[in-house]
């Protein structure tokens, strides 16, 4: 039984991995990669590691791949090919496969309810949440703490990468004569304060700076 499951899920993992590499559209690659993750999670279950299997689905197939797909859709650089006609016959195939899936689920629920011989309890607790938690918080406490610091560094790094590094605020208007000054230029006491101070005209900027300013138009008059 385990051998059959291994062959099924190993074949699924290898097939999805090859599909991922051979796809040219990154979105299809991402979906194939989710297939690999789910197949590996199933293998973890057959290896009596239910906690790792659950984390695999939640963290990898859930969090990380959602992030990747979000970035793919945000950047949206796929070649604008027209949708091909051959996708149409996939709709009845999808409906049929969904029906098979529902039937399988119903069969499993039915057979579990009516089964006489329950599975013998796993005598070893390796792979259960209890043993993983005990190991993580006693023997391997230092790696666990280092991991938390690593996650903090990742958060700070991602934020500093995503920040726009321009002095101009998003609301700065580009009109002739407009000036954007740093606060420490306007006010000598605010040293190091780089808050942007926006002015509508050159005359207003000169007034802020305390400089005597006469525009060309004034001189002509």
């Amino acid at each position, binding site marked *: 039984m*385990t*051998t059959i499951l*291994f062959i099924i899920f*190993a074949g699924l*993992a*290898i097939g999805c*991995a*090859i599909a*991922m*590499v051979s*796809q040219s559209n*990154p979105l299809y*690659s*991402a979906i194939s*990669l989710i297939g*690999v*993750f789910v197949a*590996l999670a199933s*293998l*973890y279950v*057959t*290896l*009596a*590691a239910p*906690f*790792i299997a659950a*984390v*695999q689905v939640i*963290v*990898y197939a859930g*969090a*990380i791949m959602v*992030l*990747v797909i979000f*970035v*793919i859709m*945000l*950047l949206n*650089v796929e070649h604008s090919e027209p949708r091909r006609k051959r996708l149409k016959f996939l709709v009845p195939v999808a409906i049929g496969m969904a029906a098979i899936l529902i039937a399988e689920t119903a069969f499993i629920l039915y057979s579990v309810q009516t089964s006489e011989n329950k599975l013998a309890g796993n005598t*070893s607790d*390796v*792979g259960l949440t209890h*043993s*993983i938690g005990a*190991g*993580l918080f006693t023997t*391997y406490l230092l*790696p*666990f703490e280092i*991991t938390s610091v*690593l*996650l903090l*560094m*990742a*958060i700070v*790094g*991602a934020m500093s*990468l*995503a920040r726009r590094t321009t002095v101009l605020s998003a609301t700065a208007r580009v009109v002739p004569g407009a000036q954007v000054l740093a606060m420490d230029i306007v006010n000598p006491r605010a040293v190091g304060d780089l808050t942007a101070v926006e002015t509508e005209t050159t005359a207003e900027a000169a007034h802020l700076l305390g400089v005597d300013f006469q525009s060309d138009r004034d001189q002509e008059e």
Partner: protein
Amino acid sequence: MGPQLSWYLALSAILFTIGAVGVIIKRNVIAMFMCIELMLNAVNLTFVACSSFFQDVTGQLFVFIVMTVAAAEAAVGLGIIITVFRNRESLNVDDASILKL
């Protein structure tokens, strides 16, 4: 007779090779990123298989830590990808062959 440890190691080696080949032949930076994730998963499979066959929980603890590193890598890596795309308007790694902006 169930599956042997060597089967899992062979599967892991195949997946790792596919991931490495993907990193080499792909030119889209997001696709390369996903191939790296596949290689990390192949390594995770060896950890879990050995942990299960030797009845030692240490391997699964390391899988947990590898997953955390992968999550951190995803956050920072996708941030870098977005920054590079903002500057170069391209996801092709050949367009970002010099680190200077």
